[in-house]
């Protein structure tokens, strides 16, 4: 089983040198810590920043410089700042190539639900619906099961959707899976020490296992 940092570390392997990436709140934010040394990756924050740098040093916070999670951040040499419409323009026109975000549920045809639980206070979708409707590559970082022990990888989402047929890959504490074009979660890798059987038991949607499933390499 992986912890949150393990999930982030594995997802970082999916990031290509020279790419523009949007990281959601939670585990996706941790991915920034594991981008390989020497890679030129530009992080986009949808409130209007390309080239998001690390958190500022104590005492150097700037109230005017935040990320989409409203955290104080910094710029880097080569950063650019722009308005919110332009920010979503570069998302909609697929200039931002990869979106990594969390989810409450993913279905076997790639639908994602991550913004609303009926009966609970709805906070809003923020930029998630825009991101999942447009990004070429969408990777979900989440736990395989919810707090009640129920699978979050389902035949069909039960919660209100954020986007349809958009998720390409899922990384959980147990496995790496991709979504097959004809539907189904294809098991690509197991977390260290996790068996195919355990992953099957934790996956409510259709799980496709092809031959030997290798263990993740997290060096």
């Amino acid at each position, binding site marked *: 089983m992986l912890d949150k940092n393990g999930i982030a570390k594995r997802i970082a392997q999916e990031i290509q040198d020279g790419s523009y990436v949007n990281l959601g709140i939670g585990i996706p934010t941790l991915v920034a810590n594991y981008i390989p040394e020497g890679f030129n990756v530009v992080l986009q924050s*949808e409130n209007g920043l390309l080239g998001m740098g*690390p958190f500022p040093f104590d005492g150097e916070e700037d*109230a005017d410089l*935040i990320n989409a999670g409203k955290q104080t951040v910094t710029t880097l040499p080569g950063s650019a700042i722009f308005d919110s419409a332009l920010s979503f323009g570069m998302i909609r026109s697929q200039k931002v190539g990869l979106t990594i975000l969390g989810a409450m549920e993913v279905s076997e045809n790639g639908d994602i639900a991550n913004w609303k639980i009926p009966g609970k*206070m709805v906070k*809003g*979708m923020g930029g998630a*619906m825009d991101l999942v409707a447009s990004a070429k590559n969408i990777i979900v970082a989440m736990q395989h099961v919810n707090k009640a022990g129920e699978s979050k990888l389902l035949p069909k989402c039960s919660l209100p959707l954020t986007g*349809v047929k958009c998720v390409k890959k899922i990384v959980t504490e147990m496995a790496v899976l991709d979504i097959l074009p004809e539907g189904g979660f294809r098991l690509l890798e197991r977390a260290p020490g996790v068996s195919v059987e355990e992953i099957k038991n934790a996956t409510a949607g259709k799980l496709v296992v092809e031959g030997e499933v290798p263990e993740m390499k997290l060096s």
Partner: protein
Amino acid sequence: MINKTVKNAEEAIRDIENGMTLMLGGFGLCGIPENCINALVKKGVKELTCISNNAGVDDFGIGLMLQKRQLKKMIASYVGENAEFERQLLSGELEVELVPQGTLATRCMAAGYGMPAIFTPAGVGTEVAEGKEIRNFNGKDYLLEHAFDADFAIVKAWQGDTAGNLIYRSTARNFNPVMAMAGKITIAEVEHLVEPGELDPDQIHTPGIYVHRIFQGENYEKRIEQRTTRTKSEQHA
């Protein structure tokens, strides 16, 4: 140059009346028009519809207007930081329309560009699409979303001149430029009000034609919602 200067926030908002629709710039608490919000609270106008990405926190930003129950409706993309908002929503006192963030920004932009509507893929196949026209372009579905129609847009900029030209600072830019373009009347409060000629025309973010009233703001608190830092010894935060 046409002089757009007014004395202060009170004068700038003097004709905002009950029941009007206002756009308020900012993302979270970053780049919000603090002076005008305080003046609106003091004036006590009610039954307002506010279009803003967020609804502030309990004791700052739009949260101050919520405490005085001045809002009838909030149009936003994310409202999760405000307990009073939640209370009014659950009790039915406040109506809320949640709009995807990119759609919110682009509906403002469309108004400023003189376009009645936009097509966006955000929300296709979700409850956001309910009751909306869907068009297929090149094999992909898009929702028709209308430009916003706001009586006033209220924005905050870093620098501005008396002709209304504006320059924003850092990510406090966010929704401010698109909202500045979208109001029937646009009010800009600025940290530094200067004379025409002092700003480089090449660096203007919002041309003064979009701005009807401008004033030198005061006592900016610029509150930070999520103060996150690292120590000098940390490589990564």
